[in-house]
C-alpha cells in the first residue's frame, strides 16, 4: 500500500514537470528559454517517473534497467539541448531580454 502510494505520488510529480515543460515550450519567448523548459522537464519529469516505476519494479535488474534509461536520456537530452543552442547561436539568434 505504502509502495503504491509512493509510486503514484512520484508519477504525478513527474507528470507535473512534463506539463510545466510543455507549457514552457509553448509559451516561452525564444529558443534558449524553450530549451531550458524542455530539458528541465525531460530530465526531472522522467527522473521522477522512473523513480515511481522503480519502487514497483519486480526485480533489482528491472529497476536497474529503468535507472539506466534515465541516465541515457540525461546524456542524450543534455547533448541535444547543447546542439540546438549552439546552432541557434551560430545563426546569430540573440537571447531574449525582458
Amino acid at each position, binding site marked *: 500500500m505504502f509502495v503504491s502510494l509512493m509510486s503514484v505520488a512520484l508519477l504525478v510529480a513527474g507528470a507535473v514537470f512534463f506539463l510545466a515543460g510543455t507549457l514552457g515550450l509553448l509559451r516561452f519567448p525564444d529558443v534558449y528559454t524553450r530549451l531550458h523548459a524542455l530539458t528541465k522537464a525531460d530530465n526531472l519529469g522522467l527522473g521522477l517517473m522512473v523513480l515511481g516505476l522503480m519502487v514497483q519494479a519486480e526485480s533489482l535488474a528491472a529497476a536497474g534497467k529503468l535507472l539506466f534509461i534515465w541516465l*541515457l536520456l540525461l*546524456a*542524450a537530452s*543534455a*547533448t541535444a539541448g*547543447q*546542439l540546438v543552442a*549552439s546552432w541557434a547561436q551560430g545563426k546569430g539568434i540573440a537571447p531574449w531580454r525582458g
Partner: protein
Amino acid sequence: MSLLPLAIDLVLALTLLWLAWRALNSPDLFRAVVLFIALGLVLGLVWVRLDAVDIALAEIALGAGVTGALLLAALAKLQPAASQTDELQTAELQTAELQTDQAAVMAPIALRLFIALLLLAFLAGLGFAVWQLWVPAPGLSNLVEARLDESGVAYPVTAVLLNFRGYDTLLELAVLLLALIGVWSLSTAPHLGDEEPEPALAALSRLLAPLMILVAAYLVWVGAYAPGGAFQAGSVLGAAGVLLRLSGWRLSLSATGWPLRLVLVLGVAVFAFIGLAVIGFDQPLLGYPPGWAKPAILAIELAATLSIGAILAALFIGGRP
C-alpha cells in the same frame, strides 16, 4: 478502472491520426519530417498496446529512427540547392499558390462535396469489410507453436522469420542491399571536410557507440527466446554508425574498399550459402537439417546484423565511398 486502457488507446489513436494529417499537410518539409518521426514513436506505442513488441521495436528503430535520419539527410541535401534558387522560387510559388487558390475556389462546391461523400462511402465500405473479416482466428500460430521445438529457437517470431519463412527474410535482406546499390550507383559520398565536431556530440558518441554495439549484440542473442533479432540489432548498429559519422568519425580509406563491401553483402551471402548448402544434406532449399537449426540461425542472424547495420549507415551517408 477498465475505462483507463480505453482512454489511453483512444488518445493514442487520435494522436496518431492527427500526427499523420499534420505530417502530410505541413508545407514546411523539416516540420513534416519531425512530425513523421513523432508518428513513428506513437505508432510504436500503439504496437505495444496491441502486444506486438517485435513490431514496436522495429517500428521505433527503423520506422522512426533510421527512416527519420534518412529523411533528414535527404532534406539536408535538398536545402543548399533550394536556398540558391530561393528568391526565384518564392516568386513562382506565390503565383502558383494564387493559381491553385483560384482553382480551388473555381471547383464547384457540389463536385467537391460529391467526391468527399464518395470517399467517405468507400471508407465505410472498407471498414465494414474489415469488420466482417474480424473473426478471432488463431491463423497459423497453432502450427507454429506445435513445431516450435524443431525450429532451433524458443521464440515464435524468430522461428517464423529465420526458419519457417526464411525465404521472406532472405529477400528482405536482398532488397536492402539492392537499395544501397541503387544509391551508390547514383552518386559518390559527399566529401566532408575535417571540421571539428561539436565537443558535446563527440563526447556523447564516445559514450554511446560502445553501448550501442553491446545493445545490438544483446538484441541478436535475446532474439532466440524474446523480442529482438537481426533487424532490430542491425538498426541499432546502423544508428551507431550514423552517430559516429555525425560526430566526425570516418572509415579509414583502406577499409572502404573490399572490407566494407564484404560486410555489406555478408548477410545475404551467408543466408544464401546456408540455404543452398542444406540441399546437399537432403533438405529442401532453406530447410535446416535436424539439430543444425540453432547454429545455422545464429550464424545467419549475426551476419545479417552486421550487414543491416552497415547498409543502414551507408544509406545515411548516401553515395559510394
